[in-house]
């Protein structure tokens, strides 16, 4: 057997064993670049309120060989909720609305995935989990898109770290009244439906 052939066989074996030994990876969503964000929109007939939050953290366990087994916990710091009007922001953080002092975290804890479809590096699924806002926890099923970017951490960290990235995108609605967010506020001015869009990337550095 020629040397070239032997090298090819060895390389193929190494690749096969690496795939066979693939284990779930933990991705940390605390983003030093500050790109991760959640956007919220309340579109009432008389007023539209738009804002964002960038205090994202949490971890997700993702197995590229078995995306259906994904679990994790994403946290948004409630005091990072931002609207452009300072008075509105003060109200938003206040006790009648988000009460950020008493309830400093907005949490989504993913428990199971359904309708999992994978094409290349991208997986779409419906994630069921516990969503906690203002101290009220409700079970939600949310459509998500997971994009696994193998070996892309190096490019994002200017070569300081090597590893993989996981991008999560989700858009879903919740009802303000379900979570006790100022349920007395008139719905013509402050919509009951809160449209949420999450765009976050987590890193799994290689040791």
């Amino acid at each position, binding site marked *: 057997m020629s040397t070239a052939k032997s090298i090819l066989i060895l390389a193929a074996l190494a690749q096969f064993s690496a795939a066979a030994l693939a284990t779930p990876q933990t991705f940390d969503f605390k983003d030093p670049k500050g790109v991760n964000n959640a956007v919220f929109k309340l579109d009432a007939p008389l007023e539209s309120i738009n804002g964002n939050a960038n205090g994202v953290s949490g971890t997700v366990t993702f197995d590229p060989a078995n995306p259906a087994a994904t679990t994790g916990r994403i946290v948004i710091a409630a005091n990072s909720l931002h609207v*452009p009007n300072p008075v509105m922001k003060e109200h938003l953080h206040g006790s009648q609305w988000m009460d950020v002092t008493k309830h400093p975290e907005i949490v989504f804890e993913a428990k199971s995935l359904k309708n999992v479809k994978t094409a290349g590096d991208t997986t779409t699924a419906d994630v069921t989990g516990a969503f906690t806002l203002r101290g009220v926890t409700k079970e939600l099923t949310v459509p998500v898109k997971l*994009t696994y970017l193998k070996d892309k951490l190096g490019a*994002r960290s200017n070569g300081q770290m090597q590893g993989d990235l996981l991008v999560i995108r989700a858009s879903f609605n919740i009802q303000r009244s379900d979570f006790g967010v100022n349920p007395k506020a008139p719905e013509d001015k402050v919509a009951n439906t809160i449209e949420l869009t999450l765009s976050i990337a987590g890193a799994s550095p290689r040791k």
Partner: protein
Amino acid sequence: MKRALQIVAAILLLVGLGTWLAKGANRGWTKTSVEVKTMDEITGIEGITNEKRFVPGVDFLGATLLAAGLLAGGSFFIRKSVTADKTV
């Protein structure tokens, strides 16, 4: 005094309206920050930075109009100074 108040009211009105128009004629509430979006090329995520910037809204315009209106209205309550000589 009367004329001075009317001039101040007119200047306030012009400055307020001019500022509101120059800053984009925002028909929402006044903003002290604006969203600046930047694309992260690796992940494709559109990052959001809240940049400090004053964008006057309809509340600013309304307050300016009200202040100018009060000044102009107030000027009508000021009597013209009488300088006529009293002769016996």
